[in-house]
């Protein structure tokens, strides 16, 4: 990333503390230290993306094992418990280790570029989020190796199954791993969201008013608010569960005064906003891509933003539609049913606006557009089945059947994953400076589209004829075999498609045969396309002064008064902060804390009493706190870069 115009200057400011133990690596750091200590949002985004793609493969393998088990009646690919573990890990991995981090990858990389900022508001906290996410992924997957293996409780961990009283294996630690990994993943998401909110509110380039923000940035903001308001609920629910399991409290223990039903409420108070957290980023990406590939501005920008906000806000009011069959009473059930139906309205508005954008445009069917169109159509199908569930009597039939599995895979794969893949094909040229192979991209899309539909469409039918979810095998005579086999074949096709796609993304960084991208290969509209590809370390050589929405487009095609200006070149150059070890130190500290808490219990061999040893937990926690204190004392430090007048 270094160019010959950079001069290295010693920092002219006094740092608060010069630390000899972990000095801040300066600008000429390279290699692995560069990546471990980076605080640059672009590198953090890349690491989020790579880790998430790895977990996508892992979660995909878990899914293929499930599909293999269901190929025929009474198969024995997986035992009962192993099957339960598979769907638990598949669900938890895909939700928390794939879709959320992929969204975070795009938020990290693209959002600051879209608002004209040099980085996020709190770069070191950003790095800490990344390491907490990695720690969470490690913690969850460590569960395979300990007593009881992975959790077998479903990704939603319903009480009272999670109580130690009902453990299938004595001393089953699976749920404990699940609890702690979700806590640390929650911490990662929360930290990142606070960062993004502050960045979007406070670090926009001059002239970038809220209503000139790209829709993707708006979705970043809304999703961040959803995260900070929804995660506390699951944090508390998990804390209560942990206390139940470890210290014998009675929060969800029905025999001793608790209510398992409360777990469902708390989980879904988080869980429903969570699904909007999963889908809104993809909707933001699609809202960027459709206008570019229709060569028309987004139809109804204000409505799309407003309906995104409404979806976010109303998402807090519909959680009990996951609980229609739990006997909540007539009033509650009807209220949630009506609210769920209402929330379809803003979603529908978005779809009409996307169609309106394409109407009368000059549409190009390149890979990003194919995925975006795939998103719209497949998400609609998932949306229709979702509306079906909102009717309580119909839901009574759908609940716990494969119909629901079909619904959420349509919105999550057909929706979120397609949207995110569209984002990869759209933005990787900006990241890497190279165009991806268009033919291969179209092939990946074809495989994924066909594979996905062949897998999940039959599940609507299977659900209606009675195949239940989360059951490890079915007997002969129900008529399930044929469509299950078709679904399994589809799953493998989808798997191959995803694998090739991931391969394409990862090799994009190294492949010498790819064409150069240039600044704006798609003739796109938003601010990041005014920068060179790959983006320079400092993002903007001179802070732009924004004069309109879709600034890149206006600069190329709009009248002179809409062209962006730049803040005058400054003698000081661009100030770049040094890298830092402390986020990594704190991240390792948190991992140590979590592992320490997981393993603090032991049983005295003689008396049978429980012994609690918090040494490792305290050590881990202290390291985490030490890291945070040291980073607040580290001081800004930094160096300056002096891009040439003509550079971007």
């Amino acid at each position, binding site marked *: 990333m270094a160019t010959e115009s950079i001069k290295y200057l010693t920092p002219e400011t006094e740092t608060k503390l010069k630390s000899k133990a972990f000095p801040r690596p300066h600008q000429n750091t390279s290699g692995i230290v560069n990546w471990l200590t980076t605080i640059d949002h672009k590198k953090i985004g890349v690491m989020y993306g790579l880790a998430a793609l790895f977990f996508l493969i892992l979660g995909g393998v878990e899914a293929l094992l499930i599909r293999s088990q269901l190929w025929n009646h009474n198969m024995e690919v997986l035992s009962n418990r192993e099957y339960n573990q598979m769907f638990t890990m598949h669900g938890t991995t895909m939700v928390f280790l794939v879709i959320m981090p992929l969204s975070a990858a795009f938020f990290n990389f693209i959002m600051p570029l879209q608002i004209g900022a040099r980085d996020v508001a709190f770069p070191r906290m950003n790095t800490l989020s990344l390491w907490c996410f990695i720690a969470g992924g490690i913690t969850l997957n460590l569960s395979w190796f300990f007593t009881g293996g992975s959790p077998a409780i479903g990704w939603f961990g319903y009480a009272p199954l999670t109580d130690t009283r009902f453990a299938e294996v004595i001393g089953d630690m699976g749920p404990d791993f699940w609890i702690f990994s979700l806590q640390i993943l929650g911490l990662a998401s929360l930290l990142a969201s606070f960062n993004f909110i502050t960045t979007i509110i406070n670090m926009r380039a001059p002239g970038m008013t809220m209503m000139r923000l790209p829709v993707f940035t708006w979705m970043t903001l809304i999703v961040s608010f959803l995260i900070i308001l929804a995660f506390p609920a699951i944090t508390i629910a998990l804390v209560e569960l942990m206390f139940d399991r470890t210290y014998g409290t009675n929060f969800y223990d029905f025999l001793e005064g608790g209510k398992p039903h409360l777990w469902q409420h708390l989980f879904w*108070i988080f869980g429903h906003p969570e699904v909007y957290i999963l889908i809104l980023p993809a909707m933001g990406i699609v809202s960027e891509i459709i206008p570019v590939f229709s060569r028309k501005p987004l139809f109804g920008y204000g409505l799309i933003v407003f309906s995104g906000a409404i979806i976010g806000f109303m998402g*807090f009011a519909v959680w009990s539609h996951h609980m229609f069959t739990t006997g909540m009473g007539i009033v509650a059930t009807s209220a949630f049913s009506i609210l769920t139906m209402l929330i379809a309205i803003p979603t529908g508005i978005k779809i009409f606006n996307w169609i309106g954008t394409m109407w009368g445009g000059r549409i190009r069917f390149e890979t990003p557009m194919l995925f975006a169109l795939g998103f719209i159509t497949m998400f609609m199908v998932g949306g229709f089945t979702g509306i079906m569930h909102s009717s309580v009597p119909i839901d009574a039939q759908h609940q716990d059947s494969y119909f629901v599995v079909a619904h959420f895979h349509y919105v999550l794969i057909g929706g979120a994953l397609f949207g995110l893949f569209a984002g990869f094909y759209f933005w990787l040229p900006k990241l890497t400076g190279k165009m991806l192979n268009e033919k291969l991209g179209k092939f990946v899309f074809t495989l994924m589209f066909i594979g996905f539909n062949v897998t999940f469409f039959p599940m609507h039918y299977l659900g209606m004829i009675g195949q239940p979810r989360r059951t490890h095998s079915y007997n002969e005579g129900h008529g399930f075999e044929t469509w299950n086999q078709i679904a399994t074949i589809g799953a493998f096709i989808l798997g191959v498609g995803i694998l090739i796609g991931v391969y394409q993304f990862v090799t994009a960084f190294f492949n010498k045969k790819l064409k150069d991208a240039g600044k704006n290969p798609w003739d796109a509209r938003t601010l990041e396309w005014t920068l060179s590809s790959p983006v320079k370390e400092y993002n903007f050589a001179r802070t732009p002064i924004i004069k309109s929405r879709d600034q890149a487009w206006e600069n190329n095609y709009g009248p002179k008064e809409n062209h962006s200006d730049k803040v005058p070149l400054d003698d000081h150059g661009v100030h770049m902060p040094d890298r830092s070890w402390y986020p990594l130190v704190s991240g390792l500290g948190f991992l140590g804390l979590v592992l320490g808490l997981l393993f603090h219990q032991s049983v005295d061999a003689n008396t049978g009493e429980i012994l609690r040893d918090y040494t490792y937990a305290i050590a881990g926690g202290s390291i985490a706190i030490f890291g945070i204190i040291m980073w607040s004392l580290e001081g800004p430090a930094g160096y300056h870069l002096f891009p040439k007048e003509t550079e971007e």
Partner: protein
Amino acid sequence: MSGHSEDPVLEESKRFFTFFNLSMLLVAITGIEIVIIYVRAFDGPVIITVLSICSVIKFVGVMTWFMHLRWDKILNTVLFLMGLVIAVFTFFAVMYMLDNPPEVKEFSVTPLEQDWEAKTEYVKGDYTKHNDSYYVAEIAHQSGDTFSTQIMLDNEPVNSWKKVEGIPHQISWKVSTGDMIEINSLKPGNPFFHQYHPYPEDNIEGSKISLLAESASTEDFRIKVRSEAFWVENQ
């Protein structure tokens, strides 16, 4: 940092008195809360209302003045209120949903003291009283001019009335919600006990005709309704 300051020192010095006064007010309100609990001059719900109002006043006081929202830009308040509003709304929704106190809407016990009348249509299962004895109709029939326990049907004598021991009473109840209902009589000499699990559990209505040793009325009976962990009685 607070958004406006020609002379920050003067601004802050003025605020000293605001802080001090607010502090005294908070102490006073807390004092009121504690006194109310000790004095116990009011009913439970009134105390709860007063406590809630006091809490809200203190909450808003600290938020607006100690936390500077009064003097800062509105965005800070917006950020905080987002979380507060959603938390409050969710709290009320969950409290409402997990709260099912049952309510006994109607409960009555009345003796069926209909005297026998001539030339009246009776259906099977009707009760009647004649000469201090109680009878139940065995078949649907029209009574003749005088009381008799048999009537002629197709020229065959058929039992129309059967004598019963005890006094028939109609026990009826209407309950808002419940998963178990228990009705028993309070007089040891007049035993009666009925327990069942209603289904569906809402808008429960039922009635029963029962023969009792002595005449009884509603005050002699108790109905207990259970919903979740609540028990409600009519006594």
